[in-house]
């Protein structure tokens, strides 16, 4: 359960729901490189799944 609580805390921190990181996770909110790249990664994940809702059936591209 402790591991699950830790993961929950981490995800809440990454998602902005908590201001303090879980114990052992040393990335502070002031780390501009980590958070800038984290948002870029989220943008990339949204991007690669962006066609998922389309009804496009051709896959020849």
């Amino acid at each position, binding site marked *: 359960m402790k591991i699950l609580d830790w993961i929950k805390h981490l995800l809440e921190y990454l998602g902005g729901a908590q*201001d303090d990181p879980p114990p052992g996770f040393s990335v*502070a*909110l*002031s780390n*501009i*490189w980590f*958070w*800038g*790249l984290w*948002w*870029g*990664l989220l*943008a*990339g994940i949204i*991007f*690669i*799944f*962006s*066609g*998922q809702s*389309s009804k*496009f*059936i*051709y*896959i*020849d*591209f």
Partner: protein
Amino acid sequence: MPLSKYKLLWMLCVLAIALVAINVTVMVLTRNSLPRRVMAHARQARNASVVAIGNSLIAAGFDESAFDSGMGVEKERGSVNVGLGASSPVEQLLLFRYARSHGMHPQILVYGFYDQQLTEPLKFATRDFIGNRDMLYYVEPEYGLHFYQLSPHDRAEFELMRHFPMMVDRSAIWAKVELLRRKLAQTGMPAQQVNRFGRAGDFTLLEARDAAEFSRKCEAGTREDLITPINELIRQASEAGIKVVFVEMPMHPSHLSVFYDSPAWNQYRGHIQSLLVAQQVTYVDASAWEAGEQMFADRLHLTEVAAAQFSKRLGNLLRESQIAESQSNRDNKAGAWPIHGQ
């Protein structure tokens, strides 16, 4: 610890760098996307005497070397297939213009179509510009906009998106994820029949739901003129001295029996024939040229063997009609065009 505005701005700068990197990556990964490959093929075949244009039915069904052998022309002066899967007549017009602007001066334009493709009005939204249709963002985008309707919201979105590769080619990356998803979904399941365009079974979705719906579409189409990009394709080709040949593409036997063997289709066909012939377009009805189910990779597309058969026969037909035409010109008789190949 509260985040200062200064730090937040720096984070946004890092995000902007990440987005630039994603755009560059997408640009590199899609430099050989299918529309660009078709465009490159058109550039390389500037000596072609015949250009074949259409959607996936032409892309899969027009075999250049078989056509050249039927037509009796050498490869260097032969045909070029610039058919593009999942394209509308707007992209097809743009491809024709692209080929012409890159030095191609063909003598014949072969345009393959099926169902009500020539009369169905084109209404798009930016969400439709995925797959091969994304060329609307980068091949004469302003000119292309004359031929389809976009809402003011979609027009603004189009204008914004066309400057960013990750928006323009968004589906090229998604397609790879989708292929992976389909592969994973197949784990432990009976194998599905697939071909170069996707899952064979999916292509029944591109047909009318039933004969009644198809008849309604035919009746609506019989009251319509040809859509503007088709008229424009014919006009621009004719003005350039190119003979225009419209081919009703070979269709699956089930498609013929359910949809084409109907009074509504006969009436619709008569209507589009008269509209085309009035513009000196040759009309070839090849819909029943391939009779066996085994000649089709799915409900719409020919197999490679069938494509070679169809293309050779088409080449033969055009060669014979050209001979007949030159003879009739010599004898000062009415032209042998249009032909109605059966």
